[in-house]
């Protein structure tokens, strides 16, 4: 039984799209409205707003104040949190501790990114600046190149093949086509992945997720308030966080992401569960190799045995540990600050038994693995009903 101190009582997400036609406040409202309707509470119950985004994509400075006003939450305090692609699970961890400490009893975690405010070339440039700008990014590296080096190291150490990566994309598209909020809803075949052009060897176009605009919203509450408002509260069982050196060359090895492994260990220890207790998981598949690394970091597979899990289809709905059955980042798209909240939403719906066509059988405990940068920030959250 999870500790029943802090619960998720509402989740929402905008559609993830290529170019959102409104501004960031309207974009945020889409997720907020859905989460508040889900929670069934009025805005005056929100005691603090945590806005999660990577602000260099925005024209607006200090967006949390704009959004606080637009959502009608003032005078509730608002501030912004950033940990690159894991910003909204970082916001979630802070919301958890706010409630656990008794400082606030209901907190809204709102993640967003409107990457289309700037050109794709500028997005690439800002992405690159998520590495050490003093000397890494000017030397011809890129996000795909960083993950490609992890892939090459995994290939060399464990005999992983491009075919294994393609299988991850095929799974993502199997479920992505069912997700009406996903940016990429086409079925993808193994051959299509294998024939797509190389980006950074061995990663091909279809091994990479797409930029998108989107927002996500998670409402957390104390036990008392959760019982008052919610028939199906989902409880926070474990929160694990860890950082690795920003400079990839300073890391001990490239066989996996240490920040994810350590965050996972912490979250499991806090929750008092292990990998075999997880019924459904959302992992950060910004690239196909990242999902295989996640299997191993989280203990779903032993180091080096991640590829076997996807070859055996064990991470499909029918398998022993369904992973990213909402299509993952590969299908949904990856609006940096909104991604973690979208993952949390999927797991909350799974644990409530409200996931519809992608419902994992008897899901009682679920896990979210959300990574910022190329394995810089690792956040693992375990939820239970």
């Amino acid at each position, binding site marked *: 039984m999870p500790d029943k101190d802090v619960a998720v009582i509402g989740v929402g997400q905008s559609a993830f799209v290529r170019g959102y036609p409104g501004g960031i406040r309207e974009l945020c409202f889409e997720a907020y409205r859905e989460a508040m309707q889900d929670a069934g509470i009025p805005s005056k119950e929100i005691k603090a707003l945590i806005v999660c985004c990577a602000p260099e994509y925005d024209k607006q400075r200090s967006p949390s104040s704009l959004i606080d006003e637009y959502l009608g939450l003032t005078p509730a305090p608002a501030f912004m949190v950033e940990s690159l692609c894991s910003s909204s699970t970082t916001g979630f961890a802070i919301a958890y501790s706010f409630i656990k400490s008794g400082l606030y009893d209901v907190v809204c975690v709102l993640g967003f990114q409107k990457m289309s405010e700037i050109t794709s070339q500028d997005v690439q440039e800002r992405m690159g600046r998520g590495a050490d700008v003093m000397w890494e990014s*000017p030397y*011809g590296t890129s996000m795909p190149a960083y993950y490609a080096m992890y*892939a090459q190291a995994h290939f060399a150490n464990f005999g992983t093949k491009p075919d294994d990566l393609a299988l991850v994309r095929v799974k993502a598209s199997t479920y992505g086509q069912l997700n009406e909020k996903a940016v990429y809803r086409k079925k993808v075949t193994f051959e299509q992945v294998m024939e797509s052009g190389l980006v950074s060897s061995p*990663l091909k176009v279809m091994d990479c997720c797409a930029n998108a605009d989107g927002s996500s919203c998670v409402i957390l509450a104390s036990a008392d308030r959760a019982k008052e408002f919610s028939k199906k509260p989902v409880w926070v069982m474990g929160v694990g966080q860890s950082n690795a050196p920003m400079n990839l060359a300073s890391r001990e090895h490239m066989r996996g992401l240490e920040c994810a492994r350590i965050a996972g260990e912490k979250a499991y220890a806090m929750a008092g569960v292990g990998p075999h207790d997880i019924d459904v998981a959302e992992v950060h598949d910004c690239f196909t190799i990242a999902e295989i690394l996640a299997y191993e970091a989280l203990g779903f597979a032993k180091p080096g045995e991640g590829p076997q899990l996807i070859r055996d289809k064990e991470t499909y709905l029918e398998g022993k540990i369904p992973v990213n059955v909402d299509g993952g980042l590969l299908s949904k798209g990856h609006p940096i600050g909104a991604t973690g909240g979208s993952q949390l939403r999927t797991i909350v719906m799974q644990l409530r038994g409200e996931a519809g066509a992608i419902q994992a059988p008897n899901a009682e405990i679920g896990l979210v693995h959300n990574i910022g940068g190329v394995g810089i920030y690792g956040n693992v959250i375990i939820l239970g009903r």
Partner: protein
Amino acid sequence: MNTKEKNKVPLIEDMFKWPSDEPRIIASRCKKCGTVSFPKLTFCQNPSCEKKRENIEVIELSNKGKLYSYTVQRYKPPEPFRYEPYKPYGIGMVDFPEGIRIWGMITRMDNLKIGMNVKTTAGKLYEDEENEYLTWMWEPVD
């Protein structure tokens, strides 16, 4: 046609030995704890070591190392990176015997293998009317 040879200058000074027949990476080493840093630093980067300028010596790394991991970059990365005329290129991390791993472009794209021996060289990134701008690169020697 201008046949005058352009000056070959490093894109950033003091990162590798140039001009030289045998370019080498310029790093720093802490005389107290042995930590090697690249690019060279003024103070030891080991968090548990003392911060004294006089502990730091500038060193040149061995000219050979082993390729730790690599990729071939198939699209043009955004500014501030400039590589002209752009074509796909190898990029990799190399482990040096001095105990440090360093990024760099690789002089070729094919027949790369993790663990192979490479040596430090210099290669052109781009040029303007006056100069050719060079950076350090890894040249496979196996």
